């Protein structure tokens, strides 16, 4: 029996290293307990050192790519499921192409969940200006991811916001980017971030780009689920926009056509003169 401790930061590398050793030594899935971030406590701790690396382990590229996503899922079974798939792949190398296999389908579904979470994090993180002065500007955000997606997603922010310092704090892991260096730290409670006047402008934009004649609330919520709203400054306007939509459209309909402003005749004369 092996108990494999996996850290919260650097989970992917730790899992891959352990899985390689265990597969290499032929350890079957039922003989392994995966312990993420000490969640099992002392209860199951059996201190068996992992087997040494004896040979190079090969796995299909598609599995490796999938595993790199699935390790960040919140399901406590993720490591066991991945290992079980790796175990089966030893004798069924074509398994990854079998889209109808139930175990694989489950893993693909988890992969999709992590993808989606990563995508939503790229979309919904909202920075606030910390106004600290200095050569580089600094910003910070609070975000609550569904899965453990901060680590695989932070490099995106590093590529995009390279000329500023920033921090994305989450209850899971906090990412920091200072002077071009990206580091990860344990999660934390929501920090007190200073007010940022640009948020009001963004709210103005959000309200005015909305077309009240096309109200389609479910299309919005399916892409921007309510669970994200509390950290999106623009979301505070949604209620009023929906409530006022019908009246706004009615107003447009009721308004009798007005007479064109006086300048029109002059402008039209000029336009005609030009051709």
């Amino acid at each position, binding site marked *: 029996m092996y108990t494999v401790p996996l850290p919260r930061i650097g989970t992917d590398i730790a899992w891959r290293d352990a899985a390689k050793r265990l597969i290499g030594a032929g350890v079957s899935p039922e003989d392994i307990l995966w312990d993420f971030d000490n969640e099992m406590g002392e209860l199951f701790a059996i201190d068996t050192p992992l087997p040494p690396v004896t040979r190079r382990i090969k796995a299909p590229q598609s599995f490796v790519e999938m595993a790199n996503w699935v390790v960040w899922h919140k399901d406590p079974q993720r490591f066991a499921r991945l290992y079980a798939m790796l175990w089966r792949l030893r004798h069924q190398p074509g398994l990854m192409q079998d889209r109808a296999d139930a175990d694989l389908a489950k893993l693909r579904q988890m992969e999709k969940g992590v993808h989606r979470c990563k995508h939503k994090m790229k979309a919904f993180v909202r920075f606030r200006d910390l106004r600290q002065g200095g050569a580089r500007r600094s910003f910070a955000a609070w975000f609550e991811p569904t899965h453990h997606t901060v680590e695989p997603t932070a490099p995106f922010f590093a590529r995009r916001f390279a000329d500023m310092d920033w921090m994305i704090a989450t209850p899971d892991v906090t990412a920091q980017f200072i002077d071009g260096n990206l580091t990860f730290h344990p999660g934390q409670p929501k920090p007190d971030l200073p007010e940022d006047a640009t948020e009001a402008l963004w709210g103005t934009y959000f309200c005015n780009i909305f077309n009240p004649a096309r109200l389609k609330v479910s299309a919005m919520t399916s892409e921007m689920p309510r669970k994200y709203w509390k950290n999106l400054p623009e979301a505070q306007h949604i209620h009023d926009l929906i409530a006022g939509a019908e009246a706004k459209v009615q107003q*447009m*309909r009721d308004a009798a*056509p007005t007479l064109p402003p006086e300048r029109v005749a002059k402008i039209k004369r000029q*336009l005609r003169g030009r051709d």
Partner: protein
Amino acid sequence: MSRLDLSQKLAILSDAARYDASCASSGTTRRDSRDGKGLGSTEGSGICHAYAPDGRCISLLKILMTNFCIYDCAYCVNRVSSNVQRARFSPDEVVQLTIEFYRRNYIEGLFLSSGIIQSPDKTMDDMLRIAKRLREVENFRGYIHLKTIPDAAPELIEEAGLYADRLSINVELPTDQSVKAYAPEKNPATIRKAMGDVKSRKDVASERSYTGKRGKRFVPAGQSTQMIVGADGSTDATILGQSTMLYGDYKLKRVYYSAFSPIPDATAKLPLIKPPLAREHRLYQADWLLRFYGFGVDEITAARPDGNLDLDIDPKLAWALQNRALFPVDVNRASKEMLLRVPGFGTRTVGRILSTRRHRRLRYDDLLRMGASLKKAQAFIVAQDWTPGGLTDSADLRARFAPPPEQLSLF
């Protein structure tokens, strides 16, 4: 008139921009700012940073430089004869809004269009200078979409293409007659010429010269256009025919369909209607079938004699119901082309069927796991453990899919 502050201008000039459907930020070159000397990145697929309660993606800061306009397009909120409040951003305001929104991760970039002020050239030149400043002074590497003014000098449009990821020129209405009737100052031939110019310039940029050097980057995300649906009497067959021409002749990346939607201070010339959202949705589905599923316009619009799409069911299903003799198809043997024509199968499902088929014979549940919508597909397919029996030809098949008649409401 008192001076407007930035927030008031933003309200007016985003309100004026919301009738443009496009907010895409995808398909451009990959860029980043890892060198620490600039701001922004683009990585293939765009990001929707928010959704408005109209269900539409907010990816870009979509604003007008100004909503003053000397033209009089009947469908447009900015036409000269409208009494809406007018405003104008300074170039600096547009640049600062873009950069500050971008830094807070609100947007992927800027979609700038404008009413026509003084002259088309002057308008295009002002827009151009904003884009240039974003690129050259702010080192902005995010996405820029410029709506070009078709009557502007070709050199200006060409220069715009050096800074923009995408250029668009709206054809506005599906037929030349409608453009003449409702946008009297616009000339369909000029619009097409401008699109043609952008296309040839882009072709040149992607060719390598005899020295092997590639031309300068020119609108890497291509050009797009928009047609307003429901303002004139054009049928869906006419609209889709126009789209096919635009995709073919001008290599457009996207044609957007925008349901004619009530505007403040409308003109008596074009009475307000309830925006035909269902029709717009069906047109997008049909557009997809034309581009990715191997359908022709005639096939898609043949189901109804009036040349319009069936609003109650999607166009692929409508086609399949008209062509039942071709079904059911055997998912274990059918060609890719035929699988793509099965209602409820998307391109991704078809890809999975083809790859899994090499390993085993497919059963009904396998298809479910692959993401097929079997509620639609089941009447049209045969699998290892499934045949539709009389379902394919049953008289009430359409009724199973069409929604029950809607209750009428006052409009």
